[in-house]
């Protein structure tokens, strides 16, 4: 399919406090890509990712996912096709692993039965398959909060998979995990990307993981996109551009990017 998985046009986010979290951005992400978003804390990685499925609302600009524009009316439809994996896993601790994975099917079933935790056989099979994919079938009936961090993240991934999405967003998915477990999760995500062709947009702060798994890298610094290219292009100079704290006066750089100036 030639259509891009994600199209961003003039997308920006300014918080009510005045902080500009993301400067206006134009971007296309092609289907099947593995994109890493990097930058220091507060650079806008999380904001960018959360803008794609509407967990953050944009101040200006548009988001188009699979050809559908993101707005109030299409929010649920888009979200059902976009899975998300979180840094803190964001599972419902008290519910069983399988129920957590089944919540990935909820968008397809907004009926009364779903409110009573009733599912169709078909949904149960999809959830089972997702759990099998992440290797946690034996934990299906256990309470989610009894699992280790790595296991919980795998459940979170299974939940995303159960949606049968075209795109999976991952907001710092391995930041709360030890290095070995982190690699397990990254391998899983890479496998999902390669075998199922699901587009992956992942924010990471570990540069070595970026080099190892990402195809394309978007580097953000204080809300501004300072790098957009292959992972192989991450030289010392580029990394400095991305991670260096910006100075107060940046007008020179802004002028060259053509962003509208407020005065002068």
């Amino acid at each position: 399919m030639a259509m891009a998985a994600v199209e961003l046009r003039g997308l920006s986010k300014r918080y009510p406090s005045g902080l500009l979290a993301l400067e206006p951005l134009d971007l296309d992400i092609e289907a099947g890509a593995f994109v890493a978003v990097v930058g220091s804390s507060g650079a806008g990685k999380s904001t960018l990712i959360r803008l794609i499925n509407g967990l953050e609302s944009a101040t200006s600009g548009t988001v188009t996912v699979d050809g559908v524009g993101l707005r109030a009316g299409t929010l649920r439809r888009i979200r059902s096709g976009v899975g998300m994996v979180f840094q803190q896993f964001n599972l419902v601790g008290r519910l069983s692993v399988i129920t957590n994975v089944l919540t990935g099917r909820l968008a397809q079933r907004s009926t009364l039965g779903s409110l009573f935790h009733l599912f169709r056989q078909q949904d149960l099979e999809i959830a089972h398959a997702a759990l099998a994919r992440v290797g946690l079938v034996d934990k299906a009936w256990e309470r989610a909060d009894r699992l280790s961090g790595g296991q919980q993240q795998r459940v979170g991934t299974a939940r995303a998979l159960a949606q049968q999405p075209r795109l999976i967003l991952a907001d710092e998915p391995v930041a709360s995990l030890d290095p070995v477990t982190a690699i397990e999760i990254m391998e899983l995500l890479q496998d999902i990307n390669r075998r199922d062709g699901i587009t992956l947009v992942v924010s990471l702060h570990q540069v070595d993981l970026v080099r190892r798994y990402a195809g394309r890298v978007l580097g953000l610094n204080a809300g501004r996109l300072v790098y957009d290219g292959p992972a192989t292009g991450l030289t010392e100079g580029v990394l400095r551009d991305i991670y260096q704290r910006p100075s107060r006066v940046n007008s020179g750089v802004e002028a060259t990017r053509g962003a509208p100036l407020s005065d002068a």
Partner: protein
Amino acid sequence: MAEPPVLPPRPRSWLPAWAAAALALLYAAGHDLELSFEDLAYGLDDMVEYFGRYRAPDFAGVPGMLVLMMQTLATAFWGTMLAIVLGGLLAPLAARNLSPARWTYLTARELLNLMRAMPDLLLALVFVAALGLGPLPGVLALGVHTAGFLGKFCAESMERVEPGVYDGLAATGATLPQRIMYAAWPSVLREAAGYVLVILDRNVRMGAVLGLVGAGGIGLALHETLRLFDYARSSALILVMLVTILAMDALSSSLRRRLG
């Protein structure tokens, strides 16, 4: 030898001022109510003698009393169930991070406050006037009033749930009712069960006196026996009430412990 350094001036404490103001307020209030210490002092003597009249409970009518107590328990139970339904429906709407719009949040919250503010006995008065004597007005009064508490407590619990849990559900495209049933209620279930037990406890206590407004239960019987100066029967009634309330207390405490 040099002089020791001078201590900094002692910081002004507002405590004496507060204490004096409080005492003045109390004196004014007591004066306004025409209370006098002499009355109380004389009264104390009388009271010792008065309480002595209760020392020989007459348990003759106990079966009848137990029936009344069962009615009280039933009223409390139904009232609590009503509170669960009403409070449970309003609680998610009164949680700032779940309510679909600001006006639904404010409306639900104010409605719950309204239900909480009216003392349930006065609500019972109203319901009796509207529906006639009997236990049903009592059930409604208890249910509506405690729904206010239950709703407020549960809403606050839901607001305390980590926002990430709600995000996780929202990201899958779940609707608000689904988020409520999968993220909100499961996360606050233990606390909510504890609140329900506290409310049940309280409703048993209040149920005992609903009879005074004609809404059934054992309270009316006590009113009668006291009016007739039948202290023996009165003390029996009070004992029955006491035993039942303490038993419910113990039951709900042990249930709350099992919830952990």
